[in-house]
């Protein structure tokens, strides 16, 4: 394969300009309509009934009282709900049988003339259960743990290279530490919502989704319909972070309800039900063992994960995968173990695998740096591999060292006294930390259409989804660059399954996947225009493209984005409170296509990483089997006042082995490494190593006190 199959050349309207979001005005003025803001004539409202046992069977559903309430049109249960065909996602087999696999599983759905009536009806549905003992607690020694063949992303569950055990035993310096990450929740600002309308043999759905092509396809499969008879619109989406990647229960329930009642039906999940219904980041217990020579070069690396999944579906957070490519080591073991518990099904949350895995790995590297008394930036540089360790493939580009250097420079990393607990400001101890970040480069086949209209404009059609990232804007930039026309002459239609199907907004591959198809369509249109004489016909000229072939060809290169995150924290020696004072990230992610929206993505990811470090996390309640923290009062996420100084930078990375735009994904890498940078800075501030996220007072204060008393 030629390294650069789609030479772009220097475009007249270059990529990278900080264009503002095309729909920004609609969003800030409230005219942008989201899935729950469409109200067809005669619209009914649905409210789900969630199971209140952690495991068992539904023995009876008494809807008499609910149906007698005014304005109630239907109560769907497993006894009367439309039958669904099986799909690849058993979590969508809703109201099909009496099994309750976890607390919060939907067991009925009330439909009524108003939201209030639907909610009252749902509360009046009486469900009887045969409850069974439930097990919701993950431990690294859980007897149900097994080794999955593959983990999320399709990666092998276990990889062995060389002889880890012998090398680790022989290593002059070793580290053996176990890290834990609690369950984390996506909690996008817009809850999962859908408005579905079944009319004249057609199903129309407004859905809050990261990809309506996939929703359309799955609804067609579930309801045994022709995808051509379904339109799914996801025009504006208020975030997803992975939890809207594939259809979730709300859209299936809304479609069932409209099918059952014949009326349009709107359903918006209550915030408190989201953790059980839409996926979560599974907790991980991660053991990292590093063996190194006195020079800091790794000779042995093992990263082993224990995590949970549900009994509904196997989803394995691939937290040991990044250790396969981050650092050189001739002897390596990376392995996952998973136990199916009576918990909601985990799923994708921003940087699945990398976010929790790199917390452990990058904390361990920091611990090793302390053991060796080598600067943590320098230690990472000494372990830079020449080729991807797991595959021995060349990197298409790898500028981790550049990110570390530039980050250290911008952050003011040096001079740095490596000793912990020596920088005081009143009651505060201060420290700095660093961690590396990485995220793979993916691309998925997509199709797009480009049309030159008779009035001199251009129209791009592609079923991309804007989940808040600025997809419309960057696609207009890509089209303008390819067509060599000003971007304001380019109209972009996205967010409907009636458009040419395309990859969903996920895996940090939206822009690469859609943009490639758009670029290809635009280049084809340019060729058609070149061959065309005279004025354009009334319908314009159209070119279509898809990238099935390009995507299938893959790459002989190992392709990843890299970054380095630096953090300064303060720890209050009186209260144990840890706060981030400033954070700085430098990323090497190919060509940045819009510096304004890219910056938003980077600092958004870093902010989510700050949340992961300091405050996010829920607990599974052993008595009830649900997540204890289910709303935004109990599950803390960072607000503006928690994020003081945050900077994102990038280095100009030219990589000809990616796609015509030369871009890597940027949606997820910001969260990766951030939690480790903060935890490492906490160690530098206090000498306290916290291996269990988040870094809350209860884990720090007793050790601060012990240290003080020890010193006194």
């Amino acid at each position, binding site marked *: 394969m030629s390294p650069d199959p789609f030479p772009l050349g220097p475009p007249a309207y270059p990529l990278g300009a900080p264009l503002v979001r095309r729909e920004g005005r609609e969003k800030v003025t409230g005219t942008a309509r989201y899935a729950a803001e469409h109200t067809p004539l005669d619209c009914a409202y649905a409210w789900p009934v969630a199971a209140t046992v952690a495991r068992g069977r539904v023995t009876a559903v008494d809807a008499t009282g609910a149906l007698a309430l005014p304005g109630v049109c239907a109560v769907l249960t497993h006894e009367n709900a439309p039958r669904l065909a099986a799909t690849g996602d058993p979590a969508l087999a809703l109201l099909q049988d009496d099994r309750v696999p976890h607390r919060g599983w939907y067991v009925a759905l009330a439909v009524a003339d108003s939201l209030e009536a639907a909610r009252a009806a749902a509360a009046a549905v009486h469900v009887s259960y045969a409850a069974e003992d439930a097990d919701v607690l993950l431990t690294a020694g859980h007897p*149900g743990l097994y080794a*999955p063949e593959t983990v999320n992303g399709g990666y092998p569950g276990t990889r062995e290279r060389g002889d880890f055990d012998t090398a680790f035993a022989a290593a002059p310096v070793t580290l053996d530490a176990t890290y834990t990450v609690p369950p984390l929740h996506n909690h996008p600002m817009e809850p999962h919502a859908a408005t579905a309308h079944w009319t004249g043999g057609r199903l129309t759905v407004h859905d809050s989704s990261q990809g309506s092509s*996939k929703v359309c*396809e799955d609804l067609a499969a579930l309801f045994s319909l022709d995808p051509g008879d379904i339109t799914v619109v996801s025009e504006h989406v208020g975030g997803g972070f992975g939890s809207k990647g594939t259809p979730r229960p709300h859209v299936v329930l809304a479609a069932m309800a409209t099918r059952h009642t014949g009326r349009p039906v709107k359903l918006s999940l209550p915030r408190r039900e989201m953790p059980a219904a839409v996926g979560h980041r599974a907790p991980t217990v991660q053991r990292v063992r590093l063996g190194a020579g006195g020079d800091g070069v790794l000779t042995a690396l093992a990263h082993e994960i224990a995590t949970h999944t549900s009994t509904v579906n196997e989803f394995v957070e691939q937290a040991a995968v990044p250790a396969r490519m981050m650092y050189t080591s001739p002897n390596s073991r990376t392995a996952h173990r998973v136990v199916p518990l009576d918990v909601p099904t985990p799923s*994708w949350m921003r940087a699945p695998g990398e976010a929790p895995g790199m917390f452990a790995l990058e904390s361990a590297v920091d611990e090793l740096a302390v053991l060796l008394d080598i600067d943590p930036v320098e230690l990472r540089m000494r372990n830079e591999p020449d080729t991807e360790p797991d595959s021995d493939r060349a990197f298409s580009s790898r500028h981790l060292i550049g990110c570390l250097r530039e980050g250290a420079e911008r952050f003011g990393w040096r001079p740095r006294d490596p000793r912990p607990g020596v920088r005081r400001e009143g009651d505060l101890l201060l420290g700095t930390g660093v961690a590396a970040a990485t995220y793979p480069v993916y691309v998925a086949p997509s199709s797009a259409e480009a049309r030159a209209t008779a009035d001199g404009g251009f129209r791009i059609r592609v079923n991309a989804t804007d989940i808040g990232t600025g997809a419309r804007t960057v696609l207009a930039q890509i089209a303008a660059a390819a067509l060599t026309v000003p971007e304001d002459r380019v109209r972009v239609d996205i967010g409907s399954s009636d458009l040419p199907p395309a990859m969903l907004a996920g895996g940090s591959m939206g822009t690469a996947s859609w943009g490639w198809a758009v670029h290809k369509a635009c280049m084809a249109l340019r060729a058609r225009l070149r061959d065309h004489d005279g004025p354009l016909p009334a319908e314009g000229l159209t070119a279509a493209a898809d990238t099935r072939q390009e995507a299938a060809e893959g790459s002989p290169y190992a392709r990843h984005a890299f970054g380095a995150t630096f953090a300064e924290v303060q720890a209050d020696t009186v209260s144990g409170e840890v706060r981030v004072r400033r954070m700085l990230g430098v990323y090497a992610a190919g060509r940045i296509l819009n510096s304004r929206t890219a910056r938003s993505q980077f600092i958004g990811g870093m902010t989510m990483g700050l949340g992961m470090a300091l405050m996010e996390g829920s607990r599974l*309640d*052993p008595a009830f089997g649900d997540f204890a923290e289910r709303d935004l009062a109990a599950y803390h996420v960072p607000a503006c006042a928690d994020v003081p100084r945050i900077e994102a930078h990038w280095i100009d990375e030219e990589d000809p082995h990616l796609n015509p735009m030369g871009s890597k994904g940027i949606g997820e890498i910001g969260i990766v490494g951030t939690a480790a940078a903060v935890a490492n800075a906490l160690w530098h501030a206090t000498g306290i190593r916290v291996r269990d996220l988040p870094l809350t007072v209860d884990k720090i204060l007793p050790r601060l006190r012990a240290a003080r008393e020890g010193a006194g």
Partner: protein
Amino acid sequence: MRPFGYLRPAGVEEAVRAAAEAPGARFLGGGTNLVDLMKLGVETPRTLIDVSRLPLGGIEELPDGGLRIGATVRNSDLAAAAPVRERYPVLSQALLAGASGQLRNTATTGGNLLQRTRCLYFQDPTKPCNKRSPGTGCPARDGVHRDLAVLGHSAHCVATQPSDMAVALAALDAEVHLHGPDGERTVAVTDFHRLPGDRPEQDTVIRPGELLTAVRLPPAAPGARSRYRKVRDRASFAFALVSVAAVLEARDGVVERAALAFGGLAHRPWRARAAEEVLLGAPATEDTFARAADAELAAARCATTPSRSHSPATWPSACSPAWRTRPATADPTTARARRRLRPTVPDPPSPTQGREP
């Protein structure tokens, strides 16, 4: 839906009368807690009596040098009021440490004192809770109680009173004015909130139909310094893990006056009398302060530890590489769970899969 009546009386007497005539009524102030609880199904009032527009919105100087704070004074206004900032800084600081700017703009003085616990079980009507449904039990005792009470709790309830303002008021020896069907009365803030005992459903000593009309602050102690300090999980906005309101006066290195109250530790703002006793007349040193804290916390007890001890990080000795490679049982649910994984991203709409493995 659950219909409820809405009344907007013109005066205090009318409001109190309306409450007497409407069993199951609740007074509505800023609504920042009550409306949330109604949405959760925890509160199901038949009638809301909106008292937010009653003429209780003033802050008055009293002849004795104290302040009378009307029940509907907004938290943000109270925090910003000059006499409060100048003479009772602990109160201003406590208010500003609570909630968010938006909430403080809406929340009232009376409502703040009457806000209910944020115990997660109390807020979930699908679970037992003695405070919400008397006699059903207290799952928090053995459950998730990291930020619940360590002082004054009972077998029936380990909830905490969440107000920051109340903690400062307790240290300031403030009084609460109540107006009920039987007339007016005054209760010390420290006596206003109850300990749970066997009636955790009763947060305060307020009687049915009584309206909280004002809070009275005694004259500020001349020469005393006051401070509110709150420890929390999130800098921007979180309830206290623990907080302390302190009014302290030291002369020649000796504590002459001390009033301390803790928040986040008990079912009521916890006036620390034992600590104060240690402090009074003692040298104002760190050692004294530590002894004072120890004296107060000698009675502190955690709610019981969850019976199923859970230490996820204990790595099994045989974990690697001897971990089994197959599920332990032939349990059908486990077998189902071993179905092929979904990839990082789902199959794209087009037939080929372009992602690298």
